[in-house]
């Protein structure tokens, strides 16, 4: 009996070290649902802090406009809470867009580079800046700091590669 107890104790001790969970898995799970725009519209400085706040019960699940209703549904399902419509205080969902720098107006002040949360702007002091479009999340954080207002948001147009088949609209036979 005591041998078994020692064995089980050792096994549990080993498991505690071997399978140690370093981070709160629920934060990771919430973070996986969030769109990673890093726009801060939720009131937190990025998606991970917002995920942490949700996990700690400091934030509601309806504060993420880029995630939209779809994201709220997923969060509600994950956390076992009621769905809430998006809180308009934090903004409205917008079509996905990318920032565009008007390169003739840009003075090379680097303020937008410092604002970009995903390092998607290329440039140097007194040199023209440009957006790395495939890496831009459309967070709009670079728009406000620009002293010459040369950054605008362009909605991503649908092209042959991104086009999706539509949900079939079929006429049902009326008896």
């Amino acid at each position, binding site marked *: 009996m005591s041998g078994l107890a020692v064995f089980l104790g050792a096994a549990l001790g080993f498991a505690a070290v071997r399978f140690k969970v370093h981070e709160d898995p629920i934060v990771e799970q919430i973070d996986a649902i969030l769109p990673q*725009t890093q726009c801060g519209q939720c009131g937190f400085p990025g998606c991970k802090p917002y995920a942490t706040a949700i996990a700690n019960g400091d934030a509601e699940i309806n504060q993420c406009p880029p995630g939209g209703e779809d994201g709220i549904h997923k969060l509600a399902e994950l956390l076992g809470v009621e769905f809430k419509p998006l809180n308009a205080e934090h903004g409205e969902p917008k079509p996905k867009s990318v920032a565009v720098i008007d390169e003739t107006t840009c003075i090379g002040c680097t303020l937008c580079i410092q604002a970009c949360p995903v*390092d998607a702007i290329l440039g140097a002091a007194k040199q023209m800046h440009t957006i790395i479009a495939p*890496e831009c999340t459309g967070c709009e954080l670079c728009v406000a700091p620009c002293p010459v207002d040369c950054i605008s948001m362009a909605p991503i147009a649908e092209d042959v590669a991104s*086009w999706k088949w539509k949900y079939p609209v*079929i006429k049902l036979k009326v008896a």
Partner: protein
Amino acid sequence: MTRQLYEFNGGVHPEGHKHASTSRPIGIAPLPSVLIVPLRQHIGQPAKPVVAVGEQVLKGQMIGQADGYVSVAVHAPTSGTVTDIAHHVVAHPSGLTDLCVTITPDGADRWIEHSALDYRNMDASHLRNLLRELGIAGLGGAVFPSFIKLNPGATQKVPTLILNGGECEPWITCDDMLMRERATDILAGAAVMRHMLNSDEVLVGIEDNKPEAIAAMQAAASQCDFAVEVVAVPTLYPGGGAKQLIKTLTGKEVPSGGRSTDIGVATFNIGTAYSLHRAVNHGEPLISRIVTITGNVHRPQNFEVLVGTPLTELVRLTGATRDDTSGYVMGGPMMGFDLTSTEVPMVKATNCILVKSPALFPPAPPAMPCIRCGRCAQACPADLQPQELYWFARAKNFGKTQEYNLFDCIECGCCSYVCPSHIPLVQYYRYAKSEIWAKEKDKKAADLARDRHEFRQLRIEREQQERAAKLALKASAKLAEATTDKPADADAAKKAAIQAAIARAKEKKDDVAPRNVDNLPPEKLQEIADIEARRAKIRAMAQDTVEK
């Protein structure tokens, strides 16, 4: 020579309508007034334009360079002038525009210099690269870059090579006519494939509703220097699907989510074999293909058509437009899609232009609710449960559709064909597939953004730490300087160094004699000497102050 054949489950027998376009030989389409060549004609990355507006191009000259691994080049179909590189409506179910190079032909049809490739004595990867630059892609429908499929992989061997002459879709006869008229060339292409894949056996699968093609291929096979087995397979739609033909000929099934090379089989459309022959044995890039123009036209026929030919100019070859023409389909009635514009150019994927009329293609009757009859499941050649996929796709439960192997669906349309309620089942599957793809793309973008954001946070933190460390180092150095005494002879050493430098400079100056004093009168020389003396005095005074 009878080979044991196997059966795949399901399939349907739609009416063939093949005879309509097989009574005339393959015609050569005349040079159109303009050629609009899309840069995205294959699966994967579109080609990158390498010509400029106004540039003169020759027939076969590369106008779009392969960009990325899954990509092939695009070439000028004739000689002429590049008049535009812009978005133009293309043959796509969306009806959207895509980047195209517009060429106005000069009428000379002048070829660029080209020659046959010595493929037998060539490095395999170099040969594949050349095929990529010659724009060779599968002509059966998927337009997958052929050079990737012609890589035998780690085993250096794909034992079975199948040429797909199934052509099971109703109305389409381009492969049939190509086999009847150019069988030897097709097998010449097969010889290249066999060489590249190191295959043991070469099979040609042809549906038994094409006896002329079978006879022509058999005749060519008997002249061939390697064994080719031409096999007549039962006519059953979609028997020309790659997976279905492999099952019929070998009894092997391609695993779900896998590729045919996993089971040692490579399948190519016979049109691809023909274009491979043109590329390797003549050095010609893929700039033309056989297109069936049939349906509601006066003279249905197959034409050898240049890529980029506008639809209207092509359809005109079969006679004046009939009054009851209601639209155009690219491909066949089972898997084709409606073209939204008559301005779309022909591409490498265009096997057939089917002209519609209400009489030939009456509008689909209104859909009625699913009555759970299960006929779709019986007809499905991919052994799926179409009714379940339908429910889940309709309910937007995409996770479940994937559990039911939605991505094994080949969109053949058998389920919709047999559905007594006329439900457009394939539309639901296409919808579900594209939603799933879009979600995966979003997820990838989100993962990239997360990585980049986390790296940025890390970098900012590291920079802060580095700055703090630097400041600390500076502060401690200052502190150390303040506490320790200065060495007494430091100043003296400095002074000595300055003295040495001055002496060196003086020496240098004295060495250089002015060159403009040679022919001067003595009084002038005296004047200069006086000035020099004054200068020397001043210099000596200045030196004294420095020394003090």
